[in-house]
């Protein structure tokens, strides 16, 4: 059986390795089936574009969630993404439709995820945040002033000096964004006390008398100058005379030039948020009145702000500010000049307060 050499060779052929050569196509296998076909048209049932181009809404939420990432670089990169894309997206849609409908992040969600970064330990993240905030439109920001101020105050009292140094930049931004509204609901005292602390004037103790004798710490000019600038701005915004004040309208006239009643301003709906906060209507019992005394109303307009500084609870802050600024002025130099300017504004307020 199969004794012949030919038969043997045939049998062994199956187990021999085929020789492959460069430049030649591989021999087709014995059981090769040709599956190619021809068609006139190709239809794809489902097409995923997700991998190549996720929707901008998705990207925004994704990057907003990355803001709590543990790595500082990731946070910074997310911020820079938001900075480049978000303002443009907002500016397209905002005027007509609310963000909730257009699937863009709403102002409140933006605020709540961006604000904690004011206290971020990384300096680059804070700088990036500041540029992003500067790029954002200021439309609904006024409503969130209180919350933003809370975070800025927290930064101004932070134990890390870097964060404290950056905090006034955010205050500066807020002043530009919402103007006088910053000082409502206790913002006036908070701003001044915070700045006092940042400048190291020891005004942090508020009304206690012992604080005014503490000598201001020797400050680095680079740190102190921006603070002084912001302080000047705060005073300027807070103590600026209202334009076109209604006080000039004569008592005899019943009508204003625009045809409205003279006392229209007093009777219209308040334009500020949280007007009646000093009444403590929605606070828990006991937090409002301590030992039967109603909490002192926070200064809401210019006159009350001056009163607060001169004769009210802010007297201690005022004293330590004048003391500290006076010393800086005596120190001379660029810092002395800046301090002198601020001091002038304060003294003007003092004079006015005494006159009132």
């Amino acid at each position, binding site marked *: 059986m199969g004794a012949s050499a030919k038969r043997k060779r045939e049998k062994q052929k199956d187990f021999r390795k085929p020789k492959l050569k460069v430049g030649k196509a591989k021999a087709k296998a014995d059981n090769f089936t040709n599956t190619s076909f021809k068609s006139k048209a190709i239809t794809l049932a489902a097409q995923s574009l997700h991998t190549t181009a996720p929707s901008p809404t998705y990207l925004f939420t994704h990057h907003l969630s990355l803001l709590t990432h543990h790595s500082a670089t990731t946070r910074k990169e997310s911020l820079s993404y938001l900075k480049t894309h978000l303002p443009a997206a907002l500016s397209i849609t905002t005027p007509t439709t609310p963000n909730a409908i257009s699937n863009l992040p709403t102002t409140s969600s933006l605020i709540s995820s961006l604000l904690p970064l004011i206290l971020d330990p990384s300096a680059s993240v804070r700088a990036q945040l500041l540029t992003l905030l500067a790029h954002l439109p200021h439309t609904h920001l006024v409503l969130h002033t209180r919350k933003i101020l*809370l975070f800025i*105050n*927290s930064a101004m009292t932070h*134990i890390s*000096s870097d964060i404290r140094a950056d905090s006034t930049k955010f205050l500066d931004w807020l002043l530009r964004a919402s103007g006088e509204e910053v000082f409502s609901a206790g913002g006036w005292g908070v701003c001044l*006390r915070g700045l006092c*602390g940042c400048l190291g004037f020891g005004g*942090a*103790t508020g009304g206690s008398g012992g604080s005014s004798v*503490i000598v201001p710490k020797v400050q680095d000019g680079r740190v102190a100058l921006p603070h002084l600038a912001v302080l000047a701005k705060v005073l300027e915004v807070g103590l600026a005379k209202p334009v076109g004040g209604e006080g000039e309208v004569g008592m005899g006239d019943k009508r204003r030039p625009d045809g409205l009643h003279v006392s229209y301003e007093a009777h219209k709906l308040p334009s500020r948020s949280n007007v009646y906060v000093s009444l403590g209507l929605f606070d828990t019992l006991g937090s409002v009145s301590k030992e039967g005394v109603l909490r002192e109303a926070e200064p809401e307009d210019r006159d009350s702000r001056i009163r607060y500084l001169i004769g009210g609870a802010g007297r201690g802050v005022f004293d330590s500010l004048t003391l500290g600024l006076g010393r800086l002025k005596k120190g001379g130099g660029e810092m002395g000049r800046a301090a002198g300017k601020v001091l002038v504004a304060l003294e003007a307020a003092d004079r006015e307060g005494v006159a009132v």
Partner: protein
Amino acid sequence: MAKRKRAGLVKLTNLPMLQNLIRRDPPSYREEFVLQYRHYESQRDIFMSQPEGNSGETFADLVGFMSQVTSCYPDLTENFPSDLAGLLLKHHNVLHHELREKLVQSLVLLRNKDVIPSTTLLQTLFPILTTTTSKALRTQIYSTVTSDLRSSNAKIKNHKLNKTVQTVLFGLVEAGKDDAGSTAGLWAVKLTRELWKRRVWDDARTVEIMKEASLCANPKVMSGGIRFFLGVDQEMEEQEDSDDDEAVDIGRAKHQVGINKKTNKKKRQLEKAYALLKKKEKNKNKPHPLNFSALHLLHDPQGFAEALFSKHLSRNNKLTMEQKLLVLQLVSRLVGLHKLSVLGLYSYLLKFLTPRQRDVTQFLVCCAQGSHDLVPPDVLEPIVKKIADEFVSEGVAAEVATAGLNGIREVCARAPLAMNATLLQDLTEYKGSKDKGVMMAARGLIGLYREVAPEMLKKKDRGKAAAMDMKNREVLRFGIEKEGVIEGLELLEQWKAEQKQLKKAAKGEIEAKGADEEGELEEPGDSEGDDSEDDDANWAGWEIEEDDSEEDEIGWINVASDDEIEISDSEDESEDSGPRKKTKVDDEDEKDLLGEVGVEEKQLPTLATTKILTPADFAKLAELRTEAGLERLMGKKITNEDAVDADAIKGPQKRGKSDKEARLAAVMEGREGREKYGSKKGKRDKTHSTTNKEKARKKNFLMTKSKAKGKQKRSLVEKQRVLRAHVEKQKKSKRKG
């Protein structure tokens, strides 16, 4: 100022550093603290605007920092504790768990630093304990509360705090009393029980809380309260035992100090161990703190028992069988202990007394516990009758009959009049039963009635002693209480007399020695042998004694008007032997006393009426009683005050012929924890050097050869001596082993 300069150098970047600096010098860092306090306030406000979800790590750190240093600036941080408490109270359900834990810890820290009083802490935590849904928080608060209460009661009892807390707990229990759905009282019950167990609270107010809890409508609270009464005292003892277990091994500690590296820490450990040991030794001699069981501290037990019965065991009650049984146990225990009369209890029990009833032994236990000698016999008689009819009859299983007979015995031990003679005689017929349990139970019944009313037994069952005793025994009648006797008092009296005599004899001899120098004195050891000699010795002693004190030779007790009660002192009776003798017994009287002990026993011993027995007396009494074998003879006396053991009713349990596995398991269970049988030879349980025996065994043969040779050369006499010695030695060793 030096500190301030350093602060300039050190850049403050983190809270722990500031905390450290503030701790060292609070006034210098006031400004920094104020800044941080404002930071805390702003963080708190931020947090309050959105308390859910986020862990608030920085806020938690700030809270920790504040609670550490707030005691340095009490003027600035008035609001801090109330802030924390408010945050916890208002938002405890939505706060992140880590922050919640931190808040509780901070409050405890403030308490430890005495910033807030204990009451504030407890008033903050209690409402959360009952309302929170988080188990972790509950356990944390629970342990906090208990440890705070323990520590404030550690040295002396803080009555004011206890009172406040107990009032709160009482209010908690009372609030949910009539509401079957409210489990608010559960925590009060748990806490009270824990504190009672640890002996922090042991007063009537605590018991009052539990009393209120056991009358709650909620079955869980109710059973918690009842279980407290039924089992907490035992638990307390167990707790103490387990406390004892953590004893210090001073030898081990010393050894380790000798071997290991000598560090200050090790030294301190040793000192601590010594101190602990010393304290323990001291505590050993201290009298045990007076403690009453919870059942004894109850105010108005009758009212309590009636309320329990009417509230939980009335017809329209939806308690499960187990809960009903718990209530029954407590009611019957109360009835037995305080001899109350809750007549409804017995008719209620009656319907459960059938062999088919589940947990029937427990019901039998309740029957027994609830019976005492002030229950009218006509109320108890139906119970005994029902048990006898249902359990003890021809066609029932041996176990059932055993349980029935034992149950009847337990009832009758407490209220002997519940039985009539015919029934008793019927029941005693079972003493011939082939089943061991039944036979033993019937014998127990016989033994019981031999003691209390032998006339009810058949003549042959009465036994010799009881039959002889029958003449001077009064017939049992309902409502008559026997006057109490101190068992074995006559033994003590007798012993005292003997002691006195001995002392007198000794003294007499000494005086005799001094009086007549010529000798011829009998030593006490010699006098034991001969009666006449003994008499002589006594006489001699007595005569000399009489010389000293002639005025009281008669055998009457001389009762002076002012010092009729004399504190006896059995350790030091030297003054008794002086001339101011109270009891003098003539020799004739002595003889009479010895002769007619039987008659004398009937009379009440005078000792208890003339003297106040000291603890030493009682100790001696106990000793004498055991010596006389009285305890063994009488068996354990059954009283109405003890709880009935269910095992006593079940009788000896026979192991049925179960399958092989079960039997094997039982065998293995018996072997658990016992050493293996067999020779211990060659098995060392402790490392030691080679014994002499081993050495001898391993000794080179050539070295012992000469000795062996010597053995062969022994003479016959020598061999005999050696053999004798060997036999002697064997005997001795056998006796020893």
